[in-house]
């Protein structure tokens, strides 16, 4: 009994300091993450009256409506666009990251800044920039006409391709940064050892470089794929309604559609989809810390 009491007394100050240290973070997390999430989850089971006011009649209707074929087509398109975007980001990002990570000269900093600087400008503005660049009266078309390559302007906007272009443009830094970290960590003597043992550069890439940087490809892919599903403004501005994605559906329900419960149900579906992808990533041996770049 005595021992137990002294132990309790000794534990108390520790518990207090633990609460003081962890408390504020927990409070912020509860207020800004947990409560809004519960609110959205609860909202997804609510219904609306004829004036579009949210009522507390609990229903599964919102989720049933999501099974609609039109919605299904948009989910499929979202996954398709996100998939193509991720593949393109790997194909463009890998060689670029490799060059930055392996360059020894001062150019390294310049190249790195080229990736970072666009981060400092609002991505919405940059996407509008692309629209005026690609539009029928845009710079690119003016140039093409001035050079007499075609007679009239080419219709470049409002296609799936334009949306993918915008997505790749916005999200490629999220691919390059984890790839850069992975390639930078690669021990140069491993490459020398591979050459020394008779492997050509291409063989060395497949046998040594690629397997040892696959972690970076994994985490980069996840960090491109997931935001891609939700970047509604890109498909809105560059896709012009022709390449709607899940993000657009959610945005529309909360704005013009004014059907918050349906928007909430869509959000929950997107969150679940994301969780499944993260789970797969973990199963494949992905490092969770690598996602915190």
């Amino acid at each position, binding site marked *: 009994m005595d021992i137990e009491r002294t132990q309790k007394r000794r534990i108390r100050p520790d518990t207090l300091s633990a609460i003081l240290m962890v408390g504020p973070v927990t409070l912020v997390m509860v207020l800004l993450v947990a409560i809004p999430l519960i609110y959205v989850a609860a909202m997804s089971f609510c219904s609306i009256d004829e004036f579009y006011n949210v009522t507390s009649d609990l229903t599964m209707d919102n989720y049933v409506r999501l099974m609609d074929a039109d919605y299904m087509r948009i989910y499929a398109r979202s996954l398709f666009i996100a998939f193509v975007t991720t593949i393109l980001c790997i194909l463009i990002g890998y060689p670029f990251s490799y060059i930055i990570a392996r360059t020894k000269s001062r150019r390294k900093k310049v190249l790195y800044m080229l990736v970072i600087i666009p981060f400092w400008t609002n991505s919405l503005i940059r996407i509008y920039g692309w629209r005026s660049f690609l539009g029928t009266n845009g710079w690119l078309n003016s140039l093409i006409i001035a050079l007499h390559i075609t007679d009239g302007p080419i219709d470049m906007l409002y296609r799936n391709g334009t949306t993918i272009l915008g997505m790749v443009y916005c999200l490629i830094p999220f691919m390059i940064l984890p790839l850069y970290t992975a390639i930078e960590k690669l*021990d140069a*003597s*491993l490459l020398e*050892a*591979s050459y*020394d*043992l*008779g*492997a050509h550069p291409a063989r060395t890439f497949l*046998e040594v470089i690629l397997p040892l940087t696959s972690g970076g490809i994994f985490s980069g892919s996840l960090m491109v794929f997931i935001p891609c599903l939700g970047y509604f403004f890109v498909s809105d501005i560059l896709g012009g309604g022709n390449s709607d994605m899940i993000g657009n559906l959610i945005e529309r329900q909360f704005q013009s559609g004014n059907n918050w419960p349906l928007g909430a149900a869509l959000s929950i579906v997107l969150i679940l989809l994301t969780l499944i992808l993260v789970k797969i990533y973990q199963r494949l041996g992905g490092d969770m810390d690598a996602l915190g770049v």
Partner: protein
Amino acid sequence: MKNIVEIEGVNKIYGTNHVVRNMNLSVGEGEFLTLLGSSGCGKTTTLRMIAGFEEPTSGSIRVEGEPIEEKEPYERNVNTVFQSYALFPHKTIYDNIAYGLKMKKVPKAEIKERVAEMMEMVQLGGFEKRYPSQLSGGQKQRVAIARALINRPRVLLLDEPLGALDLKLRKQMQIELKRLQKKLNITFIYVTHDQEEALTMSDRIAVMHDGVIDQLGTPTEIYEHPATRFVATFIGETNTYDGCISSITDGVAVMTLENGIVSVACPDDFSILEYATVSVRPEKMRFSSSPVEGFGLQAQVKDYIYVGSVLKCIVSLPNGNELKIERLAGQELPPVGSRCYPYWIPSDAVLIHNESHYIFEALNDIRLA
């Protein structure tokens, strides 16, 4: 003996840093050659140039008679054991060792046989399915050696391969490496900063200092007849004295030092009034209780240090310089604090040209001209 590696007039310059200066070196077939020197002396750079990872700024390197510029590292019959081992962390021990053969498209059955044989040779049987992270330092070292040797290279380059091992393991691996080298009759070019390791293993040693080979010779030559002051002090313990040759009679020079005169065996290329350095190993030093002919050093016994088989004696000269003298334990010795007369048999001491004196002379010539 045919030369398998030939280095001619090689220089390597990084920016303003002249790392290897005008190097000439030939390595014979089946020879164990060590490049010995402190860090930054250019030994690793030399090895990397032979491996083909670095290009000489000027000069030529030929391996098996072929200039290295003509072949990429992955096309050559040379393998390297890296200082950090550089084992592939994502491959098993079996796949690590089989890597070189796989790249050469050797049939699978033969790979299996040769890997098994190699793993037996380095005493790693049963470790096939493990990953490098599951091995100890000594085991990783064996894998690195097996991975290089399995390709049956003509030349094996080893960059401080035992640097990360503890003393006992290092001694054991030194003997094993030497045994492997003899058995397989492969040329080893071995880089180390450990003089004892170099003396134990090598057929010849190239002592490097500031990008230059100070001396090239067998371990005995290097130890007993150091060519420069650096070699004398770098290899083993020694006592050095600077002084001026005052007379030469019958091949024995009498030198005047700050603290008195000494006698040294004198090769033909030294002359009267030349400034030179004498190097005497502690085990060749003697002391007497009365003055010895040809020696005028007087010293005081300061301390005895017992190190097992021998007793190290520290004596100090009037100017404060200390000398190390080694005696077999159990001999009768003067007590601490007493006066003694250090001496040696003239042929046990080595006379070395004083490089700083040459520089002084050169400067004088310039001034006169």
